[in-house]
């Protein structure tokens, strides 16, 4: 059964998370993500879960890793400055392979910036914010409906690949109110932790079965006593200075995502079949682009848009294939050009244009229209 409800993006994200099995949230107030903490505080105890407002962003990140390590699906939410503060512990979750979801409702920066204004300037921070070579998954919703469904997917991917997943929202979708459908049925796929089966590997928390990329779980806090550390470690979970083991670990952390890009990456392509010009956009910007594309199509212009739903890993294969069919690619994003860098890296045979904003205002459809019409 489907229930139609009016909801804000931030609220829908919480409902999706609860549907996915989130039972712990730790957060700290920050605009424009605060409603996620507020809604979690209301909803979690209703389903037997726990909410805590921690003393700072760093502590919130630490607390969700602690809760997840002992088996509870966990999430935190923040915005630009708070996202920066969480980075060290995000790296700890990468290294220890503890699943968790970090929502970043992006706002204008750097520093305190324009706290209530839209932006998408944390895209590169989402990829490379924590130190050291690491892999990450980031997902960017562009509607309230997607805030719900993709939050579920964020948890599923976190569990499946034992990694932090960045739910990269922006102020536009976070504060947007739309009618959405909340599914009551059991058809929604919820992925739980893959548990160890072989008794001979139970004592090795980071043992990886042949043909798999991700170690299976046997939770901390139950019958077997594990060690978890952010230091380089072997299959047994204990620190090591062995260069070979350390190298293998970092390589596997990178490859567990690289090997599964096809499973992780989602894109949306619209009006691309006969398009001469394609606009690359994501998140809240998609709304403005959609409007512009429809206006241009009505005028007979062959324009479409390409939207990475999964931002990291970036949908390289899909964009490359598309670029071989079209003449022009225009990147539209609310920053000085971050995904633009990825597009420039991948696309070799098209003209590349850019529409960006760093003043805290929204890119208007007419600005997109103008950019398309100006393409020679």
């Amino acid at each position: 059964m489907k229930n139609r409800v009016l909801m804000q993006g931030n609220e829908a994200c919480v409902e999706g998370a609860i549907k996915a099995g989130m039972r712990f949230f730790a957060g700290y107030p920050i605009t424009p993500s605060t409603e996620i903490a507020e809604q979690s505080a209301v909803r979690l105890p209703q389903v037997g879960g726990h909410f805590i407002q921690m003393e700072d962003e760093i502590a919130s990140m630490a607390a969700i890793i602690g809760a997840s390590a002992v088996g509870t699906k966990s999430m935190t939410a923040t915005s630009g400055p708070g996202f920066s503060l969480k980075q060290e512990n995000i790296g700890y979750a990468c290294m220890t392979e503890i699943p968790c979801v970090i929502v970043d409702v992006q706002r204008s920066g750097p520093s305190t910036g324009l706290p209530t204004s839209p932006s998408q300037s944390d895209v590169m921070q989402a990829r490379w914010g924590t130190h050291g070579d690491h892999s990450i998954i980031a997902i960017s919703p562009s509607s309230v409906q997607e805030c719900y469904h993709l939050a579920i997917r964020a948890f599923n991917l976190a569990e499946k690949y034992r990694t932090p997943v960045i739910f990269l929202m922006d102020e536009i979708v976070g504060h947007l109110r739309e009618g959405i459908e909340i599914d009551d049925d059991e058809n929604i796929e919820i992925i739980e932790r893959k548990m160890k089966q072989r008794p001979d590997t139970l004592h090795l928390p980071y043992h990886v079965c042949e043909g798999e990329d991700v170690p299976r779980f046997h939770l901390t806090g139950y019958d077997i006593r594990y060690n978890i550390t952010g230091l380089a470690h072997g299959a047994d979970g204990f620190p090591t200075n062995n260069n070979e083991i350390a190298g293998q670990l970092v390589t596997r952390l990178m490859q567990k995502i690289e090997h599964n890009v096809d499973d992780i990456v989602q894109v949306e392509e619209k009006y691309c079949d006969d398009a001469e010009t394609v606009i690359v956009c994501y998140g809240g910007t998609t709304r403005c682009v959609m409007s512009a594309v429809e206006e241009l199509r009505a005028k007979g212009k062959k324009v479409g848009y390409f939207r990475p739903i999964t931002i990291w890993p970036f949908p390289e294969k899909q964009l490359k294939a598309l670029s071989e069919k079209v003449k022009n690619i225009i990147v539209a994003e609310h920053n000085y050009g971050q995904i633009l860098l990825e597009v420039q890296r991948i696309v070799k045979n098209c003209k590349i244009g850019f529409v960006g904003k760093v003043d805290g205002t929204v890119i208007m459809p007419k600005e997109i229209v103008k950019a398309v019409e100006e393409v020679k």
Partner: protein
Amino acid sequence: MASELITKYMREEHLPHIWCPGCGHGILMRDVAQAVKNLGIDQEKVCLVSGIGCASRAAGYMDFQTMHTTHGRAIAFATGVKMARPDLEVIVIAGDGDCAAIGGNHLIHAARRNIGITVIVFNNDIYGMTGGQYSPTTPTGEFGTTAPYGNIDRPFDIAVLAAAAGASYVAKGTAYHATQTIKLIENGIKHKGFALIDCAGICATYYGRKNKKGSAVDMMKFQRDNTITVEQAKSLPREEREGKFILGKLVENDFPEFTDEYQKIIDRLKEGK
């Protein structure tokens, strides 16, 4: 034959530990093991969380559920563990820098919430792992590699800080007074709310050498000869308390414990109230 404290409570294959000869941390780690043994708690039920620094390496050696986390954040990680699994005995081992400098904010807020975590501070007044820099507990006038002309910072008393922040059990132990310190740790673990036991350790390698305190044995003797009880400290004028190690329980209160209070909310909502 090795004692049961080693065969049962330590991960023998990971010994010897990395601490320097004469370090007080080995004694304090033994005290924690002895306290858990005395209480008869299942090892599976103990989740030991640590941060970064010399003291934090204890997590790798002790045979419990162990999490070696990031610098200063052990109490915050432990808060998540305790909320998700209130049935676990959650113990944090932290050094003075880890606990009171980079982790100071988490310390005071966990104490304020009175969440049922036991924090055991291995307090040697110095950053040992990085080679002897002054810490928030280094006394004024003492030397460290970053205080080459003498430390002008005023030190924290971590136990008094925790008590002021609302911790419901606070005690002070020393590496020398093992019997009493074990008992204080035991009582801290048994205690329902937030407990902190600030244990004076010994760093002969860095603190001792920089400050001409003699050998580890000399420092241990100094600790023995300069320790007074909490009761004695109360009757001494401030000047005479200066430089003394204090031993015993400072605070014990029956405040509501955080995860218990949260469970009441869950139960109330379940009943539809």
